[in-house]
């Protein structure tokens, strides 16, 4: 039996969400070359039958396949969409256990700003801070965050211009106030 184009579009959208966890509507529309109305309709239908879930991040609604993504992974995806936390995680994957100085040097932003982002990543249970003599070192919280898995996510998740600007606004305020908690 031939599938109707309506069902086929729904399946294409579901498959796209499975392959690109955390994608947003405009991304689906652009990649699948569908109208926004069609993408909205099918994603709503898929959510209604429980095949996908969504979570809001800023101006974007991120879509995930139901049951596949736990809260921890959703948090990780949200962090990867922000410039500085994303670069900190990338550096930890690349260097293993970088010190605070390594992070400051690599990212080229102020130490108070780095401190604030690191604190946030620790609070989100994504990384740990380890004392090594007089240095503070950072590592991924546990083995549940697989670096290869993050690399896969990074291919499809990168901060958009608006997120970059809002991130820089945060850094400007943190640098000005020299916050060092």
């Amino acid at each position, binding site marked *: 039996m031939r599938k109707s184009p309506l069902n086929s579009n729904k399946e294409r959208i579901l498959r796209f969400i499975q392959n690109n966890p955390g994608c947003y509507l405009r991304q689906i529309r652009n990649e699948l070359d569908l109208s926004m109305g069609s993408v909205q309709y099918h994603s709503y239908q898929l959510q209604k039958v429980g095949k996908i879930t969504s979570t809001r*991040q*800023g*101006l974007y609604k991120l879509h995930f396949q139901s049951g596949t993504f736990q809260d921890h992974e959703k948090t990780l995806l949200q962090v990867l969409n*922000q410039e500085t936390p994303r670069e900190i995680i990338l550096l930890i994957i690349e260097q293993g256990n970088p010190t605070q100085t390594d992070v400051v040097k690599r990212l080229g932003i102020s130490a108070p700003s780095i401190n*604030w982002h690191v604190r*946030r990543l620790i609070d989100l249970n994504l990384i740990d801070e380890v004392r090594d003599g007089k240095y503070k070192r950072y590592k991924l919280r546990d083995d549940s965050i697989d670096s290869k898995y993050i690399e896969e996510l990074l291919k499809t998740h990168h901060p958009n211009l*608006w*997120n970059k*600007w*809002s*991130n820089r*606004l*945060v850094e400007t*305020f*943190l640098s*000005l*106030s020299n*916050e060092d*908690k």
Partner: protein
Amino acid sequence: MNILDIFTSETPIIELIESILYIVGTIFAGILIALSISAYRNTHLQKLLYAIVAFLLFGIFLFYEFLEHSIPLDNAFTDIVIPSMGVSILVLFFLAIVNKK
């Protein structure tokens, strides 16, 4: 009329440029408000709340200046409110910088 006269007298061109600058300023204030709200929603950094209010006041201030330019709004009340908005904006930025949270 020489070029100096254009910049020292109230000509239609100067008034037009003034209005355009107020509108552009208001639009920029709007973008900065949206950016601060987005940054606050992503990070929950409390000092951004000061920035949101400051940019909002700045937007209102510029929009009021634009309106005042187009329709007569001058009265004793606004003579106090408008300068105090300027002071409030500076105080809010100061608080955003010194606040530890």
